[in-house]
Every structure is written in C-alpha cells, then in structure tokens.
C-alpha cells in the first residue's frame, strides 16, 4: 500500500519560561492511502498536538523542532514557508476537524454564509456555483439544502458536526484529521456520524487520522491504532493486533482496555491506572510510563525503551518485548 503521509521523528516543544514542555518527542508513524489511523491516549498525551503539528500550526510558544520530517504524498512539508503551507497544504491537502468545532460556528451568520466564506477564501468562484457546491456537500453529509438558511442555534449537535465535516471536505483534501469528532454527541448520533465518516471516506478516497480517548470507538473505526503516552508512541498495531484475542503488548494499552467498562458483559470490578500522566517539562527517566506501570522492571526506570517491531506491523516501546 502507498504511504500518503510519513511522519519521522516529529518533535514539538512548548518553550515556556519554566522550561521546554516536550509535548511530542520523536513521534514516527506512517499513514497509508485509504486507511484510518487511530490516535488514542489520556488527555495531555499529545494526540491533538500531533494533529496540529501535521498542519504545521503549533500554537505559540510551541515549535516543531529541527530534524522533524512530515512527508506528505512524497513531499517534505517541513522546509516550506508559511505562505506555501497556507496555499497548498493546510486545508488543501490536510484538513482537520477540531474538537468542539461544532460549537465554534458563529452564532450571527447563517450556515450558508459561513460555508460560503470558507469556500471563497480558498477558491475563486461565482456565488451561484458556490451555492450549488455547498448544497452538494450538504446532501453528501445527509442534510437538506434548507440548512443553508438556518442559524447554528437552530441545529442539533449532530447536524452542526455534519456541517463542520462538510466544510473540512470542501477543498478535497487527501488527509483528514478528526479530533474527537463525536465526544459531545449522544450514542445514537455518534453512530450516525461514524457511519457517515465511513461512507465519505469511500466516496472521496480519504485517509483519516482519528483522534479519540475512547478505545471502544477506535475499535470500530480504525484500521491501525497508535497508542500515545506522554508525547511518545507506546504501541502501534493493526486493529487485530490491539483488540484481537492475543491482546495488546504494552502494559499501558492493556490497562486502558481493562479500564474500559463493557456494555455487553457484566464485570464486577474494573481496573484502573493509578496516578496521573507526568509533567512533560521534567518527564520521568527511563520509560515515561514506569511510575504507573504494573509490570515495571528495574531497567524501565533508567533506560528508555525503543519502539521496536515485535511482529510485522506491530511496534511496541516496552522492555518486556525486547528479546
């Protein structure tokens, strides 16, 4: 399969006056054409930061460090100027549906007007033509054309999320980053949106990066799963490798799965991970997860485990997996 996106040694540090917050440290992964890659982890582990870094728009004082490579469709976008990025990468090639974007629609303009503005900012187009295009995209996300004349407060959360998704797809990007696209929605609406995303992916031949904290949801949408912890990749494997019979190999993934309450099975007690994710200004030595790990060994406390391939396509950063 072709790679649409290669991320190599991606480092993003926030330079605060207390020191550098290593929000992303040596993140390396590929995204294949037509696949959905899931990014999971607790809040603050670097999921959203990864998404933002791929658009090359870290919020200040964040900076993508030297040596990071983001190769999009064969072209390294790191050396490009901000102008070039804006012209041919951001939104044109890589689009992002931000978390809570549906709550950021301007309350005083109609949906049609807001969509029109986004469209005309990037494409020179007759008003009539643009309107037709907007209607087409609205119907693609399952909304009637009347929605154009409505204001955001007249729409439900699900409808607003559909509009945000339609807006992200306008410019026919190749990669779409979805940051918690269903978090604030009810389960039935969530299922509807997930179905819509699956349909759109086929229609437009898209590649998705799907960011969520919900491991159950990830199992439904992602071909491959990338588990992040404290700005680093802990485990990366196919859906089968993570959720299959054999189960995940990193203790963090294992514990996260055990902490997920199941609907269809009554469990007497759930396990949990004690403590909280570390401060990224001064992360723990060795494996960053070792203070909370139930399988910790002496080596974990001093040496950082490398991300190694334990079976084809399955990468784990744990000393227990190093033979």
């Amino acid at each position, binding site marked *: 399969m072709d790679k649409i996106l290669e991320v190599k040694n991606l480092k993003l540090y926030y330079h605060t006056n207390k020191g550098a917050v290593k929000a992303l440290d040596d993140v390396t992964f590929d995204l294949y054409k037509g696949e*959905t890659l899931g990014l999971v982890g*607790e*809040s603050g582990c670097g999921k959203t930061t990864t998404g933002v870094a791929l658009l090359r728009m870290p919020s200040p004082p964040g900076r993508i460090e030297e040596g990071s490579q983001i190769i999009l469709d064969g072209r390294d976008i790191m050396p490009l100027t901000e102008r070039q990025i804006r012209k041919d990468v951001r939104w044109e090639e890589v689009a992002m549906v931000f978390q809570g974007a549906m709550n950021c629609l301007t309350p005083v303009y109609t949906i049609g007007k807001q969509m029109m503005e986004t469209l005309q900012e990037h494409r020179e187009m007759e008003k009539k033509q643009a309107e037709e295009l907007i209607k087409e995209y609205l119907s693609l996300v399952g909304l009637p054309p009347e929605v154009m004349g409505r204001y955001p407060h007249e729409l*439900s*959360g*699900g*409808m607003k999320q559909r509009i945000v998704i339609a807006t992200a797809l306008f410019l026919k990007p190749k990669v779409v980053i979805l940051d918690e696209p269903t978090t604030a929605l*009810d*389960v*039935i*609406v*969530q*299922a*509807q949106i*997930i*179905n819509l995303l*699956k*349909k759109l992916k086929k229609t437009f031949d898209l590649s998705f990066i799907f960011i969520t*904290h*919900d*491991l*159950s*949801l*990830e*199992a*439904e*949408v*992602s*071909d491959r799963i990338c588990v992040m912890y404290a700005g680093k990749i802990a485990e990366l494997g196919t*859906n*089968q490798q*993570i*959720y*299959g019979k054999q189960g995940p190999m990193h203790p963090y993934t294992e*514990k*996260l*799965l055990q*902490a*997920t*309450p*199941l*609907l*269809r099975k*009554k*469990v007497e*007690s*759930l*396990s*949990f*991970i*004690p403590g*909280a994710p570390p401060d990224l200004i001064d992360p723990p030595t060795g494996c960053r997860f070792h203070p909370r790990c139930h399988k910790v060994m002496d080596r974990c406390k001093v040496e950082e485990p490398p991300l190694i391939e334990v079976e084809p396509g399955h990468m784990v950063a744990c000393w227990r997996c190093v033979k």
Partner: protein
Amino acid sequence: MSLNDNDVILQVKDLKKHFTPHQSLIQSLAGSGQKRPIKAVDGITFDLRRGEIFGLIGESGSGKTTTGKMIMKLIEPTSGTMVFNGEDVTHTDKLRTQVYRRQVQMIFQDPYASMNPRFKIRDVLQEPLIIHKIEGDNQKHDEMIIKSLTEVKLNPPAEFMGRYPHMLSGGQRQRVATARTLILNPMLLVADEPVSMIDLSTRAEILAMMKDVQRDLGLTYLYITHDLSTARYFTDRIAVMYLGRIVEMGPANELIDNPIHPYTKALIEAVPEPMTGKVDVIKELPISGEIPSPANIPPGCRFHTRCPYAKPECSEQSEPELMDAGNGHFHACRRWKEI
C-alpha cells in the same frame, strides 16, 4: 413484588416540568398566542429504594438532568409529587428545604466547575458546614473535613486542604466534590454524569470509590448518565428516559441483556465495543433521525416517529403507560410481544 414503605427512600409520582418560553410584552399584546410549553419532563414515576444505585439513562434532551434538578429542589416541579422518607417534599418552605438539602446532596458533572476557583479545598469543604451552621470552631470543622477527605481516599488529607481546585487532577477533584457532599451525612446522592469529564484511566477508580462510599455509609445514589456501559457496571437498576418519559425500567443486567423497548434496543446497538472486526462495516442502526423537540412531542407513543416497528396504532392510541414484563422489568411498548 411489593415494597415496604420503609424500603423506599424517594417516591416520584407523575412528576412533570414544563417550561413556558419567555414571551415579550409586545408578543402577548399582538396576541400571537401562547407559545408551546417545553415539556422537559412529562410525567415520570419511579421509586428509589434505600441503599440502591439507580441509573437514569437518556440522550441529551431526554429530561434526565431536569429530573435530577427537581429532586435536588433546584427547580420547582410543574406537577406530580415527590415523597422523601414518607414526607411530601414536592413544595416545601425555606426551613424544610434547608433540612432536605442536608439529606439530599448532588455531585456535578464537571467537578472543576462545581467548585469556586477562588476557594481552597478547605473552604470548599467547610462551606456546607457554614451554610448549615454545623456547630464547632474551625478546629472541629477541620476534623470533619479530614474525616470526609479520608472517606474518599484522598491521602494525606491535610496536604490537600491548602490547595486550590486547579492544582488537583480531575480524579482528585471529583473526590473532593464527593467529600463535600458526604460531610453533611446525606442519605441520597444525586450524581449527574460524575465521571464523564474524567480520563478513562481513572474513571473506574472514581466509580469504585463512589461504590465503596455507598456501601460503607449505606447511601442511595441516583446516577444520571448517557453512558450505558458505566451504568451497567455501576448501577443496580436502570430507567431509560426518552423525551421526558421513562420508556423502560428494570434491573441493570436484565435490562441491558434483554431490552424490550425498541429505543433501548437502539441505544444498546449504538454503543461501540473494544472488539476487533467491525472496521469499515457500516452498522445498520435500527433507528434514524434525532430526538424531536420537547416543545413538539409526537402524539401517541412519543417514540413512534423513529421506531422501526411503528404501526398506525402507535400514533393513534393514547400514550402507553409502563407495563410489567415480570422480574421488576417495566416497559412502555404496546407491541413488545410482536417485536
């Protein structure tokens, strides 16, 4: 199954809350007619048994939070009754309300938002003691604060008292919020989505803590959530709400393993699970569309507009009441035997 009155801590009967939209002077002069009331809660009946955890499940707009607020007496019910410990508490005077609030406490969804950001943990926990004029000097209060912090397993308690809410993790904050409710020795706790803002890795920890506290102190919980998975793990009984009414109610395991009402079935169907093999498969959802507006409730069975099994009788006949299917499993579907 008949219940001794003594076993029921709170009896809710045909409770309704209708909000009337604000009408401007000009609108009413112009005679544009009364706006439709928003029927947030439209006649719900259930009993809370002493010592149980009762789950109230529903999507947003189902009226579950409004129900919780009525039980907390934060808003006045439009009609219906609430009987707490054998006493009618639907409408109470100021004094009685104050006493009621010592016995019924609430845990909010966002523990951070539920604490004044300018208060230290000590002040947060002392507030109920001051409000209810609990006797004792600061030292006596401190002892009570330490005791309740110990109950929610925040160790060492003394160290947390001087901190501000923003210095704690999400899990620690929810423990403090729980401690604040426990300090007055309540009987009933209303918990509105207490873990939905908390990271997955610690969610189970908080639920386990709340369960321990409930067992140790013999509390009754009303657990309000949209999350069926935690409800199954956490509760004894579940009531599913749709558009202001309970459509199905029963023991947690029974209800989820053998749902009767088509809405409950759809809800369960929509929940994803961490099992491989469903990627890129478009799930057939048994229902479509979104929840209608509570200002415009469909006639007859209010679910008929989205129900895959709806027949003309569902919309033509009157609204179905809760029926017993045995084992304390109630439902409000007329055609349950056929589907």
